């Protein structure tokens, strides 16, 4: 376990070293093959020094007296977004699961609905945000963050529905026949066989759903103008990037941190479900 953590840490350090080395040695205009930009520019604007970013994290957010260190402000924003994304993920899991169950149970539903589950993700949030915000506001007790959670759920449900459906269909023919021979009903087959057999698909689906929910929460905040979260910070910090190139990286790091926490929660779930992953090659 400690070896695992150390290696992960070494990986991050290695990436940092590559970053600095390239910034030092690479051309300011980046590496191009013909018109194709292969490697990035190395200007301070494009690739600030890592220590600049670290240093910036310790400085106050703005010149206002009493403003918090950037890292604290980012962490606060992360917590807000994490809550919103968490709610969206939960909703996405419930909806994605129900949809997958419907598609598994009724093959016609699968054939009719699955393409739209996939296609739903090609509708940009910009087209949906006005609808979500507008309709949400008609409901009593609707809060602004709920719109953002709904957008997060919208992005999260697709990979979950697709993954769970695949998982539910992954049970082996011989095992299905066994349950069939027991005259097991749909529900029994689901709980005794399909669900346990689906775990290998379920975990990446939940994980993708978690990162999609985070992306959705961030995009939703940007799109709807919900304040306080990391999405808003990304926009706000980007505006200062010309004179303060390290600042937007703080927000990016924050967004990544939320995603990692979300994925970590799913990983814990994976440990809890170890029993169902006996075939998995240890890695």
């Amino acid at each position, binding site marked *: 376990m400690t070896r695992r953590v150390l290696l992960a840490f070494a990986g991050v350090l290695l990436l940092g070293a590559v970053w600095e080395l390239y910034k030092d040695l690479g051309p300011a205009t980046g590496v191009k093959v013909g018109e194709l930009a292969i490697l990035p520019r190395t200007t301070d604007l494009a690739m600030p020094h890592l220590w600049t970013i670290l240093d910036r994290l310790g400085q106050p957010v703005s010149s206002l007296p009493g403003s918090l260190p950037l890292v604290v402000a980012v962490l606060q924003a992360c917590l807000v977004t994490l809550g919103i994304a968490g709610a969206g993920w939960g909703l996405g899991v419930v909806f994605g699961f129900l949809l997958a169950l419907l598609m598994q149970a009724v093959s016609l539903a699968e054939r009719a609905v699955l393409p739209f589950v996939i296609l739903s993700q090609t509708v940009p949030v910009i087209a949906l945000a006005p609808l979500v915000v507008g309709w949400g506001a008609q409901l009593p007790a609707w809060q602004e963050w709920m719109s953002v959670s709904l957008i997060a759920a919208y992005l999260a449900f697709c990979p979950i529905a697709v993954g769970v459906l695949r998982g539910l269909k992954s049970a082996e023919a011989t095992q299905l026949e066994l349950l069939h021979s*027991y*005259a097991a009903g749909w529900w029994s087959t689901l709980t005794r066989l399909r669900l346990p057999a689906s775990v290998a698909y379920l975990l990446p689906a939940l994980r993708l759903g978690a990162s999609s929910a985070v992306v959705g929460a961030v995009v939703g905040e940007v799109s709807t103008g919900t304040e306080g979260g990391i999405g808003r910070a990304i926009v706000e910090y980007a505006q200062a990037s010309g004179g303060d190139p390290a600042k937007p990286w703080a927000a990016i790091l924050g967004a990544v941190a939320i995603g990692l926490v979300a994925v970590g929660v799913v990983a814990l779930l994976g440990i809890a479900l170890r029993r169902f992953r006996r075939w998995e090659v240890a890695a």
Partner: protein
Amino acid sequence: MSDAVAIAGVTRTFATGRGPAVTALQDVSLTVAPGEFVSLIGPSGCGKSTLLRLIADLDQPTSGIVSVFGKSARQARLDQDYGIAFQQAGLLPWRTVAANVELPLDLHRVPAAERRARVAELLDFVGLADFAGSYPDQLSGGMQQRVAIARAFAEKPSLLLMDEPFGALDEMTRERMQTELVRLSAETGAAVVFVTHSIPEAVFLSDRVVVMSPRPGRIREIVPIGLGPGRERGEALRENPAFYAAVTAVREALHGDGAVPVGVENR
């Protein structure tokens, strides 16, 4: 009282995408009386498993009728009139040995206490009491097969369908299981349809042995054995001249008129 199994003029062909369809069974008719023990024997690929699957309603005949206890095969399956053990153990890898045996009881809402008692009894019967908490991947091939056998017995069914259940067992265990199986089926009055490749096994167990011929799978001959009621069959029987005679009869039925060259059943 209606037959345990009644198969009338059943044909089953498989489309194979490219190439001609494979006729696994052609015009097969067979009845099994309640409490009767019938073995199916025949060359590899002759349709034994297919026939068993039709009885279990895991597959449907292309033509012909299968009925079980006077009902359709489907109804019999829904009524849970049979227990089945497949050619492959087919255990659920995420369930322990005990939980695998418990599966049918669990599905049919047998109370927990009764379930536990029954599972313990069954694991004792197949000699795996020590492995109740192990997972299938921690067992040897023969041990897995024994778990599947225990599972088939779990509900004391009135019809047992078994596809080469003892194939992976050593001789001693196998003979013990054979003796137990005959005793159990006699005691409970269960009919058994049993697929095997072993002529002595078929003879020892059965009231009748059905000898099949391959491609298309047909019943070549049905050999009545008549070694007396099951409950009286014991180890001594294996040394009995009547036993040897029956073995020879089945062997001859199987090898046919001698015109079929060895191993050419597949051409």
